[in-house]
């Protein structure tokens, strides 16, 4: 693919930072000015991402070199179909999340800090998405941890502080593994630029031991952020954060940048051929299968609403990794589709959970009986999200499952098929009772009716639920071409 030089990537990373700086100058009490600034900076960034997307749709890669430290080591953006897919998904959701946050955070203390960090973490996420080499990705990866840490400990309770320490420890631990691998890969190859098909072809798989070791280190480094078991426990802990943070960062941006990084390593550093040569995929697949099943089972056991969603996220992220690990076009296609579909569905679910928590103060699903009569729109949106993740047509989730299953059959891996089907059933066991109890059982509430969340929260929820259905019905005009571009770019 031809590439063009453009400063657009720089702007996409810079605009949120500028927005954050402005927010830092706005006094705590000027709520409207701050909300407007946050929304404008995020929307402007989104427009930049769209501009990049237009280049990509014309089959042009967008490149930009920021700093060159030495030959082969530079801060360098190169936006390929995979990067733009993640960038577009994240930046659309950022707009929804900012609108939702203005409702959720209303009358809460420390809003300035919250919005500042929330906007600035968009910059970090886009940096991860648009990075052209492992070094740049690593820098933004750590930056993302730093930017989101204040959001995790936002409530400043003891629990939040403890969770914050766990969050930092896990994420920096993973980052350390990546840094170590980065240095060694730099030593072996001379550069760490991402290239479809991998950059290790010239080494011929030698030194074998080192390459294998580094593979596991780097993949687990990213896997920690992608919440692969047994490195997942930071994610449930991070659920102490306010709901918009859990919805966007811990269901989409942070965890998916982990999965995204892993995909980069699998397909752009090592490459499918090298992975088959090194014969390392199966070990990883075992971990992922374990993650999917145990994640679902733990989701079933947890009754705290956000925890259930967190474990469900862990399990669903496993789907994406599984798709990537199949090393076949169809499998990758399914995995990539699921990046987008899961993002939309899970953020809907989290937004609904946040609305319920905000309006009723109840955090346990067992206390939510009868909530559907008070918050019908929210709970219908929740039902859409839940059914979508189970894989019911025509909500978008079915499509990723369709391709993941086809990919698993193609790769002759009936184990994967069984795991996905079992997980679907488990999904239904932990989502549907919430919906059923919400609408068809009686609960006790302080206020008898009309508890629906404020419009700033309700509108994003409703729009996202509609998008989830639309992405199922019109996927061939929206998500599928994007994912197809990625697969073509990687495999052909």
């Amino acid at each position, binding site marked *: 693919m031809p590439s063009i030089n453009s400063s657009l990537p720089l702007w996409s990373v810079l605009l949120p930072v500028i927005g954050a700086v402005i927010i830092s100058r706005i006094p705590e009490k000027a709520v409207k000015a701050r909300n407007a600034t946050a929304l404008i900076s995020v929307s402007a960034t989104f427009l930049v991402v769209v501009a990049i997307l237009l280049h990509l749709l014309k089959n042009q890669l967008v490149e930009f070199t920021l700093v060159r430290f030495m030959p082969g080591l530079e801060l360098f953006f190169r936006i390929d179909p995979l990067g733009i897919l993640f960038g577009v998904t994240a930046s659309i959701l950022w707009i929804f999340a900012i609108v939702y946050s203005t409702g959720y955070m209303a009358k809460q203390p420390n809003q300035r800090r919250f919005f500042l960090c929330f906007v600035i973490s968009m910059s970090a996420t886009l940096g991860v998405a648009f990075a052209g080499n492992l070094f740049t990705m690593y820098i933004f990866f750590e930056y993302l941890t730093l930017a989101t840490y204040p959001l995790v400990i936002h409530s400043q309770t003891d629990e939040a502080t403890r969770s914050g320490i766990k969050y930092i420890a896990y994420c920096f631990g993973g980052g350390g593994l990546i840094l170590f691998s980065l240095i060694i890969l730099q030593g072996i190859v001379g550069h760490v630029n991402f290239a479809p098909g991998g950059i290790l072809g010239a080494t011929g798989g030698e030194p074998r031991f080192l390459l294998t070791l580094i593979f596991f280190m780097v993949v687990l480094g990213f896997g920690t952020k992608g919440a692969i078991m047994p490195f997942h426990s930071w994610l449930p802990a991070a659920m102490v954060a306010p709901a918009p943070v859990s919805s966007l960062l811990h269901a989409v941006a942070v965890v998916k940048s982990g999965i995204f990084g892993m995909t980069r390593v699998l397909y752009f550093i090592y490459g499918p051929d090298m992975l088959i040569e090194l014969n390392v995929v199966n070990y990883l697949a075992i971990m992922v299968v374990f993650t999917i099943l145990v994640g679902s089972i733990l989701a079933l056991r947890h009754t705290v609403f956000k925890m259930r969603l967190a474990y469900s996220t862990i399990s669903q992220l496993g789907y994406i990794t599984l798709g990537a690990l199949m090393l076949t076009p169809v499998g990758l296609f399914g995995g990539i589709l699921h990046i987008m579909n899961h993002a939309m569905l899970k953020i809907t679910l989290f937004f609904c959970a946040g609305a319920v928590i905000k309006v009723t103060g109840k955090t346990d699903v067992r206390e939510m009986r009868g909530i559907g009569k008070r918050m019908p729109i929210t709970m219908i949106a929740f039902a859409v999200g839940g059914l979508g993740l189970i894989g019911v047509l025509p909500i978008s989730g079915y499509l990723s499952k369709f391709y993941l299953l086809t990919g698993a059959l193609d790769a002759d891996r009936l184990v994967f*098929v069984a795991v996905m089907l079992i997980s679907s059933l488990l999904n239904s066991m932990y989502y*549907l009772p919430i919906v059923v109890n919400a609408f068809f059982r009686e609960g006790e509430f302080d206020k008898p*009716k009309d508890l629906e969340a404020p419009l700033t929260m309700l509108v994003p929820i409703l729009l996202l639920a509609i998008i989830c259905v639309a992405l199922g019905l019109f996927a061939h005009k929206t998500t599928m071409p994007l994912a197809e571009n990625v697969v073509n770019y990687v495999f052909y």
Partner: protein
Amino acid sequence: MVQETMNSIIPFLMIIVPLLSGLAVFFTGGGRNSHGSIDSNKYQEEKADDLPDGKAVPRNIILMVSTLVPLGLSIYLFPFIARGTIIVSNFDILPPLGLTFRVDLLGQYISLLFTFFGFIIVLYAIGYMRGDPLPQRFFGFLLLVFAGSLGVVLAGDLFTFFLFFEFMSIMYFVLVVHDATTDAVAAGVKFLFMTIIAGVALFLAVVIVFRETGSLALDTPGLITTYSTLGLLAFLGFMIAFGTKAAMFPLHFWMPDAYSFAPLPAATFSSAIMLKVGVYGFIRVFYNVFGLEFLEMVNWDLVIMLIAVFTILFGSTIAIAQDDIIRRLAYSGIAQVGYIILGIALLTPNALIGAVFHIMAHAFMKGCMFLCMGAVIKNTGNRSIRKMQGVGHQLPITMLAFTVAAVTSVGIPPFNVFLTKWHLSLGALDINQFWLIIILLISSLLNAAYYLPISYHAFLGLEEGSHGESAHHGEAGHHGESVKKKSLEPVPVMLIPILILTFGCLVFGLPTYNWPLEIVKTVAAMLH
């Protein structure tokens, strides 16, 4: 055979009209009812209609229009399809395969039945649901389920089929739990999980068929033509999915609960229409996905045949032990669907005629019984068969209709089920399975054993198992006399559907005037 195809939007219209009307119905009437606690009385029969007339009337108009329009469209399509034309239409949504509709004679026959019964049941429900606290929810979802069931039979490929199949099932869940009692919710959850299991199984089967053949279209006599483990897996997936919907043993257990706790029109809808969707799936899988030659080669049909036989005997036997009338009807329904599946699994033209004919015959016969018993339950508040002494004096027309339907179900000429059993027997003879005829006879006797006493006691008012105790007898007789004066016959809007169905039980059994049988024969010829 070269088939002429005709591109038409009509199948889509048949689905979208009830679908949109269903959504519109939510916005009619009642508003949000602030009934703080759910009444423990699940029948709510004595409640006054809390809807102002001004709101019930527009809803009823929508309901009538949205069921009559598909019926009219189906009748309109009939001459085209009868000439051998296939109606198709494609829509560029729902990747990867698009939304396609394809109506051949089988689909047309079933859609005609569905639209007819949809109309009848909705008409009846307007009377039955009077006084319900949330009629707009019930009717809204009833129309959505109706749209889903039509979508299934009009679907042109397995993916579209799957879409509507899931949609119908999930929407039906709301009907099951409509009364929101603890039992209803438990039954609903059971139904919902069976739906999800069926959905997952069907999904796997669809994915396998697509991967193995690259196509999901339902226009060929067999997509899968070679044996493979995956093929077997797909077959199992289909059988689990459709077996659940059609309440085939051992996947039947959601059904008696769902029927007895759902509002009665919903149970009727399931019996007359939704079970048939599962059966329709069986036919499509046997004739379009796997194909006759293939199934004859691998003999998977034999397993289904044995399960069907077991289902017949099991359903009939359990039905006798039920005292709750709805549960008795439900178990009897399990047995009846066993006939249809047996007819499909025998893979002979005659048996298929029996099966496809029974789809209609059973809908008339069982639908009629459900509607009659709905009238009895609503107007007397009694579901126990033992307590239905002398009810025939209170609701003479209803119980007479019930008796006709009961006699029909036994399979005596000239009632329509006779033709089913006749053709099933012919089909069994075609492949030299004499013992199946004995099974059919046993089942007929069991049918008689569990239905006819109901009619008998209803009119003669004898206490069941009273052993002729005179005191007891006198009391029962006295009771019978006291209620004799007061007629509890249902309102016309409920009675008319009952009478129409009763008429159907009779008229389609007379051999000289039997166009459904002619259609069915053509269908069987087309599929073989």
